[in-house]
């Protein structure tokens, strides 16, 4: 989940794709294919994305990927799997995705994942707590890296 979020954000911000929900003055530096010109295979993926995200359109980052339909199909399949309800529910996954976006200073990711988290039930109080944790651990990780602290735990061990 963290990996696909970071990768999608890198593409969306790198290409200056417009934010999906908030107002922004961003203009894409590439031409985005329209949904109307999609092949049946691509349209099927687009429909699935729109339903998954409960949107009336397809996020620009996936429209960009449709320039290579095989890549779109494969990558969307991975994203869908990463964010699907499994052992963790979608909200529990969307909150760290928002945190990852905020940490990486991704305007596109913050916009997209905050909307998704809210849609899935994140309250304003929950958002406040999530941002507090992001802030606290942006501090801790920087202190740890600056002092080159070695881990206290073996990450393979289980409590």
């Amino acid at each position, binding site marked *: *989940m*963290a990996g696909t979020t*970071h990768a999608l954000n890198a593409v969306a911000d790198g290409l200056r794709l417009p934010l999906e929900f908030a107002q922004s003055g961003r203009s894409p530096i590439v031409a985005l294919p329209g949904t109307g010109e999609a092949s049946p295979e691509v349209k099927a993926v687009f429909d699935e994305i729109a339903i998954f995200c409960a949107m009336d359109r397809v996020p620009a980052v996936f429209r960009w990927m449709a320039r290579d339909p095989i890549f779109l199909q494969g990558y969307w399949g991975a994203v869908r799997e990463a964010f699907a309800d499994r052992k*963790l529910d979608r909200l*529990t996954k969307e*909150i*760290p*995705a928002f*945190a*990852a976006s905020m*940490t*990486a200073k991704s305007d596109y990711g913050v916009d997209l994942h905050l909307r998704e988290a809210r849609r899935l039930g994140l*309250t304003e*109080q*929950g958002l*406040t*707590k*999530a941002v*507090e*944790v*992001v802030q*606290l*651990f*942006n*501090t*801790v*990780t*920087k*202190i*740890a*890296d600056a*002092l*080159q*602290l*070695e*881990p*206290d735990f073996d990450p393979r061990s289980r*409590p």
Partner: protein
Amino acid sequence: MEIVRIPEASELAPEDQPFLEATKSWFKIDFVPKMSRVLLSHPEFGRPYGRESRRAMSDGALTRAQKEMIVATVSAIYVCEY
């Protein structure tokens, strides 16, 4: 390799010992993590920071597990091994 000497828990101020013990209970471990010792080597910073961390990470509008996932994600984005 760490670039500072990390104090032993026993070297830290007596008034911080209850918090250090509570930290062990919080993480269910039998030692005090390095970060706690580093932060409390500067108590004017470490004490309020530690209190706020404990408060922020407690179950509430988000569960502690959800918050720990946020922490893991922030660490992953920064590739912070600690």
